[in-house]
């Protein structure tokens, strides 16, 4: 039953990358919380517990064969949809939106689970059908429905950031598995049309405001614009080598809003400068390439697409978060993988890493 090759093939490199990012996260969090009172310091210890839980769940994720996930795809998908529905009905309201389900002392964010569920269910679908010329529109109707259900439930919460990530993951996976040229053109037109109508009918006013603010941060200097301006000042002030650990003035004077969650990179960039920020971006890039390489070496099409899916998810979150804090993108609440404070997002990323390890360990296996 047990194959020794599993241990031989254990992906030490991926584990190493993950550990580096987690350590960087803890150190930066310590710094980001310096300005706060004792209440804030608790967050630091809470995050340590989350890291522990994350590693535990990651281990569970690579113990069993990932092909089991393929069999359970619809069960996982169905469960996550039910949780999304439940959150709209029973969810806890925080900051004007309903995103959390409370189970005793633990609150979970079902939209995070939904991201993985969509990846799994699409990987199953795309690995089952194969067309050399690529998929036609007809082939894509079903995966489209699979994506639009969680997407619309998440946007209803409202959580545009996570909704967008779900959509981007699905779109990237679909593009990766290839779409027939004619269909691709139709799709692009369709996306533009729905994008425009979504802008007018779907987006809440405050979400539109964010986009306007992004285009002109000075427009809303007290709200989102303030975040962007302050974040840019903090990053820029880091200059070449940074102010040094725990020395960030922007951060310690509490200029940075939500510095421990979505804007943690600004703290890091101010204290570590270009050298440090460049290093962490490089680590992220290696992590993504590593994920794609796992897909490359996998000899099973479900495994390949699954790895591409989870890597895509990590990639988009990195890109959106960094783009946001550097003023390249509107402010949408997407945390920085493995570094931002927050349990749900951390666990989700750990699950993704676990899945990657799982596929990597079994790279010798074929269908």
């Amino acid at each position, binding site marked *: 039953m047990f194959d020794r090759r599993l241990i031989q093939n254990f992906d030490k490199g991926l584990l190493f990358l993950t550990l580096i990012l987690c350590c960087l996260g803890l150190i930066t969090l310590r710094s980001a919380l310096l300005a706060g009172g004792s209440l804030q310091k608790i967050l630091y210890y809470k995050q340590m517990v989350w890291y522990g839980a994350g590693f535990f769940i990651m281990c569970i994720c690579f113990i069993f064969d990932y092909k089991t996930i393929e069999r359970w795809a619809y069960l996982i998908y169905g469960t996550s949809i039910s949780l999304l529905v439940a959150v709209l009905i029973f969810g806890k309201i925080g900051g004007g939106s309903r995103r959390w389900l409370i189970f005793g002392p633990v609150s979970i964010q079902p939209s995070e689970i939904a991201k993985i569920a969509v990846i799994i269910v699409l990987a199953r679908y795309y690995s089952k059908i194969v067309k050399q010329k690529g998929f036609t529109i007809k082939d894509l109707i079903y995966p489209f429905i699979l994506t639009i259900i969680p997407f619309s439930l998440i946007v209803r919460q409202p959580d545009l950031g996570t909704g967008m990530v779900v959509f981007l993951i699905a779109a990237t996976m679909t593009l990766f598995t290839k779409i027939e040229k004619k269909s691709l053109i139709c799709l692009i037109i369709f996306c533009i049309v729905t994008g425009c109508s979504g802008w007018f009918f779907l987006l809440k006013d405050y979400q539109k405001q964010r986009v306007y603010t992004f285009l002109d941060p000075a427009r809303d200097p007290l709200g989102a614009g303030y975040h962007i301006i302050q974040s840019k000042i903090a990053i820029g002030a880091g200059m070449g080598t940074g102010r040094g650990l725990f020395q960030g003035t922007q951060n310690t*004077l509490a200029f940075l809003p939500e510095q421990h969650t979505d804007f943690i990179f600004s703290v890091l960039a101010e204290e570590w400068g270009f050298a440090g920020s460049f290093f962490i971006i490089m680590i992220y*890039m290696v992590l993504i390439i590593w994920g794609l390489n796992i897909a490359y070496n996998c000899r099973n099409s479900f495994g390949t697409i699954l790895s591409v899916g989870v890597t895509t998810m990590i990639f988009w979150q990195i890109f959106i978060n960094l783009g946001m804090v550097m003023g390249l993108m509107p402010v949408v609440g997407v945390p920085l993988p493995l570094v931002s404070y927050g349990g749900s997002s951390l666990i989700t990323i750990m699950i993704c890493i676990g899945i990657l390890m799982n596929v990597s360990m079994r790279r010798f296996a074929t269908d």
Partner: protein
Amino acid sequence: MGSYPKAIDSGWYKHRLTGAMFCVIGTFLILIIRLFYLQIIEGEEYRRLSENQCIRLQAISAPRGVIYDRSGILLVDNRPSYDLNIVIKDASPLDDTIKKLSQYTNISEKEFKDTLKTSRRVADYKPLLLKKDIDRDMLAAIETHKFDLPGIVIDVKTKREYIYEKSAAHLIGYLGEISAAELKSDQYQGFQGGDYVGKFGVEKSAESMLRGKNGGRQVEVNAKGQVVRVFKTVEAVPGYNIYLTIEHDLQKKAESLLEDKVGGVVVMECDSGKILAMASSPSFDQNLFVRGMNYKQWNDLISNPDRPMENKVVNGEYPPASTYKVITAMAGLEEAVVDEKTSFYCPGYYHYGDRTFRCWKKSGHGRVAVKDALAVSCDVYFYQVGQRLGVDRIAKYAKMAGLGKPTGIQLGQEASGLIPTSAWKKKKKGIPWQKGETLSIAIGQGYNLATPLQMCVLFSAVANNGRLYQPLVIEKALDDQDNIVFQAEKKLVGTISVSQKTMDIVKAGLWEVVNGRRGTAKIIAAKEFDIYGKTGTAQVVSRPAGDDSPKKNIKNHLKPHAWFVGYGIKDGQKIAASVMIEHGEHGSSTAAPIVGELIKAYFQKKQVENDYLPITGL
């Protein structure tokens, strides 16, 4: 799916993965270029921005809309209030600054230090409140020594001022600090702890109009905390100014008539639903909520048995008593269980089953038909009409007349009253309806409950030949450019669908109440205009049978409530009024004169206005 190959040529995916890797490297390159731009190329500038100054946010709070009566008399205004704040970062050495501040203000150092200790820790550059609403002398002292007091900031805020304290307090309402629950709700998005929001009355129900939109500015400050540069200002948008439908003079009159009484009065324009006056007694001073009150003041307000905080017009539920006979009369005529001429003999009591139901007049009214029965308020007549109708047919007309449900007035929580039916009792109490109970219902006692406002709407509908209008309290709202942004529109919310003949008979009966020889409210008959109405005396608790003790011995809280509801007509203008005095004993002597006075005051003022004569004799 059987037609597709089971596995794919792995080389095909490998080709795509190579492409994907290039895309990834490309996007990371963009991030790095951006990072390079921010930290290396623009780094100096950002370092300067972050180092020798700070960018701070200063809020500009939006002035709240003021409130006028319908003719433009200012009822609620804003006044400036000066708050003493300290910015710890700029106030160094802190002890020294506090010491000086204490000298100039005559407030002990200890008090300031205690405030600093107990206040929530915020960032050092943020102003921290030391003392709220300081007086002008203190303000002058601080302003003159400003150079000596680094980090001391005077924050000018606007405070609500209720000019005629206690007047229309229940209608206008008051402001209070936003609660934790409100902060969480969607309705108050963008609010912060410490913000003042409407808590009651129009201040609450028209919150979205009055509120305005806060602005702010982003400024660059130097090491001393002085503003060096303003980056961007977003001006605050003032809230809308609101004109109420009430007339200040009539409101004052209504309040003076209620003085020393416990109860409510409301006056309404019949053909528009606009409320002309609404008073509830005892009242309270809304300014207390703005200034803050001590424990004793608060305790006095909430533990007073006369419930000053309750708007008795919209939230007080009372048995409507004989005023309800209008409904029984309409139902009886319309359902043809009686006609105009059907008469019953009243010996002062009525036997039904094994019970004896008494008329309020022991000696009886003799033989009366519907108009006389209304005029003299004969209970025996209505017992028999009620008995013939049954409870459910009476309820049908009561509900048609808007009873048993909120009127829809924009004052937040409104009591709905209660119109019992046999199904209601079965569901609520689990026992079937007793036919004898219908007799009490027919004269407005028993389970029946109504608010003074509901009765006012009902009588104004009678004046309107059946059309029920939603009561309105906000006439219009203007923005700061004086553009009308909201204009009240009358809203038909129901119709009492009875024949014109029925309506005419009932009206004639109501006319007799005031103008008839035997009418129960004949003391308010007037020459210059017509008053129609109905008195009511609502039993609070049934006195033990055989209690014939002299009335003066009855304890006050056992005395019945006094009602009068009616309307006045002059030159086609119709206004309705409803008065309920708790434990006022007699509708005819306690409540009716109030309505008489109000209708008179209103028409006299109208007359004066029409004649362009100076106002006299009001």
